[in-house]
């Protein structure tokens, strides 16, 4: 037993939700708020900078026949344009293309941290970013509706679905109010957050367990080898989820904007 590596002797400890807590690197308290800089905040700066750099470098000197980074970023913009904007809003929605493209790239890069070595933390696994982005989309579709239809007309069509006998509004209006202005942003944020938390926990547990089995020097080592091979597939799956969730967040924002532009008939 004395030759066993320390990891095996200590027993297996599955990583839990404490994986998402990071201590402050720089302490900063303002007005009773903890505005300290921790690893997650640094990663936020990094993702913001990377998003900006990607677009800046790609379109700084655009060429008629794109190559390299311009090619990649043009295909991203084209994807959002055809698959999200034109498909869900129509030509009218092209002025929201910059917002939706930035949103998609930002959410994707935030999620991508979860599968990148060294970083290995999904930014959207913390509530801050998903909720702020969901609030941005909420404010955007409300302001689009108000500016397109006028304040009273927008809230009338949003809260009082047409073609219903008026006593039914007592039943339906609270549902429409909660559905449009509370459930929409909350589900937008929680869907992204929960997917990222689950993905990160699965990866953490899997990798820690693989390491534990590989170093246990008994029959488990064989399972560890199998798990090591399987972990490649798991990382690929998380990469897929990162892209899918960025797509879902963007497409639902587009759908909400479309609903505000064109009221229900």
């Amino acid at each position, binding site marked *: 037993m004395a030759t066993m590596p320390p990891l095996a002797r200590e027993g297996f400890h599955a990583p839990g939700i404490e994986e998402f807590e990071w201590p402050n690197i720089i302490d900063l308290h303002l007005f009773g708020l903890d505005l300290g800089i921790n690893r997650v905040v640094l990663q936020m700066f990094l993702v913001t900078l990377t998003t900006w750099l990607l677009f800046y470098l790609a379109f700084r000197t655009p060429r008629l026949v794109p190559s390299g980074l311009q090619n990649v970023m043009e295909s991203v913009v084209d994807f959002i344009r055809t*698959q999200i904007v*034109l*498909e*869900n*809003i*129509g030509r009218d929605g092209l002025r929201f293309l910059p917002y939706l493209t930035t949103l998609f790239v930002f959410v994707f890069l935030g999620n991508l941290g979860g599968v990148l070595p060294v970083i290995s933390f999904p930014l959207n696994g913390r509530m801050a970013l998903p909720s702020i982005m969901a609030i941005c989309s909420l404010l955007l579709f409300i302001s689009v509706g108000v500016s397109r239809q006028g304040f009273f007309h927008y809230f009338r069509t949003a809260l009082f*679905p047409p*073609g*219903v006998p008026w006593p*039914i509004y007592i*039943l*339906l209006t*609270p*549902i*429409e*109010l*909660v*559905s449009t202005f*509370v*459930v*929409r942003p909350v*589900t937008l944020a929680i869907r992204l957050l929960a997917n990222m938390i689950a993905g990160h926990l699965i990866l953490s547990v899997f990798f820690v367990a693989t390491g534990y089995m590989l170093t246990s020097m008994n029959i488990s080592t064989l399972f560890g080898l199998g798990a090591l091979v399987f972990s490649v597939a798991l990382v690929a799956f998380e990469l897929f989820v990162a892209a899918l969730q960025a797509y*879902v967040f963007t*497409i*639902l924002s587009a*759908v909400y904007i*479309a609903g505000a532009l*064109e009221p*229900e*008939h």
Partner: protein
Amino acid sequence: MSQPEQPGRPGGGADVVWSIIGTLVAGVLAWGGIGWLLDRWLGTEFLVAVGVLVGAAGAFYLIIRRYGSG
């Protein structure tokens, strides 16, 4: 991408699914919340359950009215 003929607003699919789930949750939350508040106000205990049922019924009505004909 092949699109089925859609005379109304483009899109459909993902947004319809999420809209249905959202309406159901909203119905239960809105009227369940009203029932809960009434319970606290009146000192009763059954109105939250009535609220949840009423909310679910209202949400079903909204969903069927909106998507039932298509």
